[in-house]
């Protein structure tokens, strides 16, 4: 052993270089199969990256478009008619204001003789101050306010075959349809389908006879302030008064927070669902690697005979799995980024903001790191049994009764998997209590799935005495 260094390492040839070379050589006839193993990782990571990217873009879009969601700097609402003292307060808040009264009512389309329950919104003023009432024709969004005219939701127009210029009867008054309503602040396609909206000028509400004592009407007041007014400070100051008069309020920052939280919860939920799918896929990966490793016992025994150390044999296959996990994760991230381009099309009716589809590098990075971690963690269980394969397997296939049951490394891998699930879940849920429940649920599920695929078989080949 004269060519060895004092620390027992061999001189000359790059040991890591040779390990990578052997990993590459050994994978030659198995690359297709390895990619098949990793296909569940590709799909899992694709789902996660698509969801992360959507969440990322949504956060940015909500930040940018929050003013358009509420349509004003401040919205005050109540479900009671305003009395004189409240009116005084409301008038004192600002001069650039609009009023909206909304309620559910039946409308009648004389042309098609159809009736439908809709959301009537009687509007006065220049609302919305941010964004616009998108209508067809475009000018209808402003012009309808001056005449006994109505903006009718496009789905209603389609349903009742109504056209601009036709009439719609609301209560005792008949309105000319000034335009088809395509989009209003904070309104989604889904909400429009459930409760389609008809806008009319507030001036004509009394004439319909629908606003009477006892009518369930929601009163809203919208304000636009100049840049000097700090709206959040203003509402904080007025909060006791709002509370006393049962007035609700909403500001752009509130809207941002509430909408952001709703969608953040949604993306977290979807991330956890994808994570579960990924974990289940990883069990499949673990089982496949287990079979793969079993087939490699003889090759490993040959290498051991020729002088390869147990750690080196382990590393050759670890490099293979990490490389294929990395490749699978990159492919998954790419697929997820492509899927994310189509998500706005699918979700446009559910989400009140215009979703951009910019590439989220942080989501891609997270997805790739996650993919490598899970493929490595779940492949480690079968891979650690490689260390125990004896060179004697080249001479005979006798069986030693040594098992992996008491192998500390095996328990260390289990601990790592548990830690990984805990940390990932904690990162998504932000509370330890929910994290523990979720992790416990995952463990029960994993245990149930794992019952049928023990990873002891590899160790039941010839192991060191």
């Amino acid at each position, binding site marked *: *052993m004269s*060519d*060895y260094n004092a620390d*027992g390492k*061999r*001189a*000359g*040839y*790059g*040991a890591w270089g*040779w390990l990578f*070379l052997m990993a590459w*050589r*050994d*994978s*030659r*006839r*198995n690359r297709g199969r390895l990619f098949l193993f990793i296909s569940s990782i590709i799909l899992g990571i694709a789902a996660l990256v698509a969801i992360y990217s959507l969440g990322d873009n949504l956060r940015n879009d909500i930040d940018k478009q929050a003013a358009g969601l509420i349509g004003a700097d401040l919205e005050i609402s109540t479900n009671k008619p305003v009395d004189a003292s409240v009116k005084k307060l409301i008038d004192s808040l600002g001069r650039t204001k609009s009023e909206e009264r909304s309620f559910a009512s039946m409308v009648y389309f004389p042309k098609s003789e159809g009736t439908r329950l809709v959301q009537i919104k009687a509007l006065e003023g220049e609302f919305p101050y941010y964004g616009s009432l998108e209508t067809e024709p475009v000018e209808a969004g402003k012009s309808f306010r001056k005449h006994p005219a109505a903006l009718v939701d496009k789905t209603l127009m389609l349903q009742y075959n109504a056209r601009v210029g036709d009439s719609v009867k609301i209560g005792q008054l008949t309105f000319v349809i000034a335009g088809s309503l395509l989009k209003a602040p904070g309104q989604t396609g889904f909400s429009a389908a459930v409760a389609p909206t008809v806008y009319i000028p507030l001036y004509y509400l009394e004439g319909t006879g629908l606003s009477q004592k006892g009518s369930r009407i929601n009163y809203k007041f919208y304000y636009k302030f100049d840049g000097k007014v700090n709206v959040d400070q203003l509402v904080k100051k007025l909060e006791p008064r709002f509370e006393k008069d049962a007035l609700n309020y909403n500001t752009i920052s509130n809207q941002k927070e509430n909408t952001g939280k709703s969608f953040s919860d949604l993306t977290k939920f979807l991330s956890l669902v994808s994570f579960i799918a990924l974990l289940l896929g990883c069990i499949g990966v673990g089982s496949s690697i287990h079979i793969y490793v079993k087939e490699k016992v*003889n*090759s490993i*025994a*040959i*290498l*051991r*005979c*020729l*002088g*390869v*150390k*147990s*750690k080196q044999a382990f590393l050759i296959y670890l490099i293979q799995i990490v490389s294929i996990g990395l490749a699978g994760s990159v492919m998954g991230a790419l697929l997820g980024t492509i899927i994310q381009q189509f998500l706005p099309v699918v979700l446009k009716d559910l989400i009140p903001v215009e979703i951009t589809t910019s590439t989220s590098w942080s989501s891609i990075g997270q997805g790739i790191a996650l993919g490598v971690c899970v493929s490595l963690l779940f492949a480690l269980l079968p891979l650690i049994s490689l260390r125990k394969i*004896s*060179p*004697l397997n*080249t*001479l*005979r296939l006798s069986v030693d*009764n040594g098992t992996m049951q008491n192998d500390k490394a095996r328990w260390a891998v289990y601990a790592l998997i548990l830690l990984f699930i805990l940390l990932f879940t904690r990162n998504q849920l932000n509370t330890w209590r929910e994290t523990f429940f979720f992790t416990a649920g995952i463990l029960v599920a994993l245990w149930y799935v794992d019952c049928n695929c023990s990873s002891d078989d590899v160790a039941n080949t010839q192991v*060191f*005495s």
Partner: protein
Amino acid sequence: MAILNLQNVSKTYQSAGRTLTVLDNINFSVEAGSTMSIVGPSGSGKTTLLGLCAGLDRSSKGSIELNNIKLDDLSEDQRAEVRNEHVGFIFQNFQLMPTLTALENVMVPLELRGVKKIKLVAMDLLEKVGLADRSHHFPAQLSGGEQQRISLARAFINKPQILFADEPTGSLDAETSEKVIDLIFGLNKEAGTTLVLVTHDNDLAVKTQRIIRIKGGKVVSDEQPSRLLP
């Protein structure tokens, strides 16, 4: 000078609560550069003995010295280093890596040592076994005889002090066996390597300078074929 020295070597296995003695108190030494056969019936323990001598396994009792290195005290990884440094192997089933080409299979022992520019050395050995033109073929593309010749080239590339061959012609037909045997002895003579053969084949055994017969895990005879021949 002895390159291999076994003293009171025994190997036992625990099976179903019973102790099974496969080798019992084996003693012999092998001179450097000599050739020797271990023969015996199936189940006599000859392959187990080969495994112990080559450092593939550890004895239950006794001591084995290979090139003055005491194998009993070494870990499996240390024994792997010894194998790479001092030992060559030929197996009955050739044991080539199926995903490596013939050339790559031959190069592995030296690559592992970290030796550079070994392609020429490997090609030279492939030339000697008559397979230089098949260097880029995979084992599955080669016949049994060709695979064994590749295995021979691999066994000699690290210039081992001792070569262990387990039934080297066991999977070959008579004609191919003859060629492989000639190659083994030819290369062995050229390299001055010690050869330890495990075989059923008496015709092959008598080509070595010494034959150790084992039966039931014990050495029953230790003779030189030249004295046995008429």
